[in-house]
């Protein structure tokens, strides 16, 4: 997408490795749905890796197995990852609603078969989100992710749907 700023297209960060079937109930447990953000963020991915929420750093990359984000339509799942500073999600496969929600919030999410078996925890991963290129451990391995469709790249380039709506409202005035 030509409108995507070049600095957005390549992301580089430390990987957090997760297994398959990470659900929205792990990302954003239903019992904390109306709790203040600081409490909700404390429990993100708690059942899978209790240390994640306290140790994740801005710019880190989340790497996971198949069916990442399965379960509910709650947008808090990708929102929490974004709030914790996660720059990108790359998984063997993404659950459909999660993939759409992540992009809608301006959080890049890519499907990359085999990525969870290749990346080691806390290894550096570099991803070109437009070209779909994944470079693991300073060039130790190269993988190809599914390209993000044009419509989604357009949303990403706006920073998510809310900025897109702001532009829409301004045009209507």
């Amino acid at each position, binding site marked *: 997408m030509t409108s995507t700023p070049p600095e957005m297209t390549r992301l580089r960060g430390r990987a957090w490795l997760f297994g398959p079937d990470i659900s929205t109930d792990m990302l954003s447990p239903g019992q904390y749905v*109306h709790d203040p953000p600081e409490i909700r963020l404390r429990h993100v991915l708690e059942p899978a890796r209790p240390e994640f929420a306290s140790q994740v750093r801005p710019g880190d990359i989340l790497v996971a197995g198949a069916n990442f984000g399965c379960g509910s339509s709650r947008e808090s799942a990708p929102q929490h990852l974004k709030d914790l500073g996660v720059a990108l999600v790359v998984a063997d496969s993404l659950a459909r609603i999660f993939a759409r929600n992540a992009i809608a919030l301006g959080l890049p999410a890519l499907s990359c078969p085999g990525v969870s078996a290749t990346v080691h925890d806390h290894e550096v991963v570099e991803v070109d989100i437009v070209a779909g290129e994944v470079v693991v451990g300073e060039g130790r391995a190269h993988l190809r992710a599914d390209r993000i469709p044009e419509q989604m790249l357009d949303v990403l380039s706006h920073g998510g749907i809310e900025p897109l709506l702001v532009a829409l409202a301004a045009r209507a005035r």
Partner: protein
Amino acid sequence: MTANARIERLAKDASGAAEPPEMTAAETVLARASGAARVEPGEYVVAKIDAMMMHDIFAADVLGMLERAGIERLHDPGRATVVFDHMVPAPSVAAAEHQAKARRLVRRYGIEAFFEIGRGICHQVMVEEGRVRPGDLVVGTDSHSTTYGALGAAGCGIGSSEMAYALATGELWFKVPETVLVALEGRLAPSVAAKDLVLFLVREIGSSEAQYRSIEHGGSGADSLSLAERMTIANMGVEMGAKFSLFPAAGAATARDGARYAATHHVDLSALSPQVAVPHHVENVVDVGEVAGLHLDQVFLGSCTNGRIEDLREAARILRGRRIASGLRMIVTPASSTVYRQAAEEGVLTELSAAGAIIEGPGCGPCFGGHLGLLAPGERCLGTHNRNFRGRMGSPEGEVYLGSPATAAASALAGVIADPRELAVSDTRQEVTR
């Protein structure tokens, strides 16, 4: 015949011979909604949305985003429905504030189809209130919006931001999914339910095959299923990662005999047995016998999957005149106020209460672990709902098993996971001895 006419005739014959196969149900809906004669799997389309549903968890977020963005009015408020069902009645000040904000915004944006607390679970209410019609394209801020497939409507869950966009513009982009056909034949045996079929499908098909795809149910077996049963099956389509789970509107199936499917599965309903999903994923499905005898602390009967009158009657049939096991608690939530009143009038609620169950108001509380029945660490629950992910129902150290209303009722009686067919057999024996 002129050369030109001959060429035209040849071209016509050739196009006739190469006529593409009929579209699947999902393709038919997406083609109509996007104003195209035909759509192909993998293609991206911008489609007009026929109905949009929000519940109390997200209505304030969605409408609040529109207000922040400066969107003055909805594209068509008549297509929007808001149902308060998740945190009802408000269990905390935070929930009450959230709902008060949503009520203000519902008025601000002129949404007339607003259903207050107590009316019921959103998907049940949408169907009871005629907010969904066969052939519609429907989105909801709830993943179980696949339920509308029971009516032949293509329904799927979306997030709050996408809902805000859909309300503002009336449309949304979709990838046309491939379709997996589930060809059903035969009839379900006694004490075997639609829930057992859909758990079996999750076991056999699963997210590896159905992810991003549409599931289409057909065959003579599909014709034998009631609306309630179809809703249970379509509801859990999303547990396979499916975008839609469709029972094409009556009469449409033959027209699509030539439709192209990515895969076909044949299921003989009469061969099915009670199924149970074991922790911590819906795809971990086993025959009930493999987990029979496991001690239970709680049984839950309800949810958009299995809280309808048919489900409550089935449980009452088993629990009538008996008591649930001591030390076990049983929670019942009818899916709507209509179901609640009908169950009251039929005496079903009295029978369930007399058996020791607590009857809660219509809503989603226990199913999504919001309130009204959470688990302590180490506790085990068997429910008729749709998800058993770690932490789904309270403590991440709790265990959730999923089964049919009959399995839930039989298990509540026994205090352990039990096969409802064995109970049915012992019923008969007792009657014979008497």
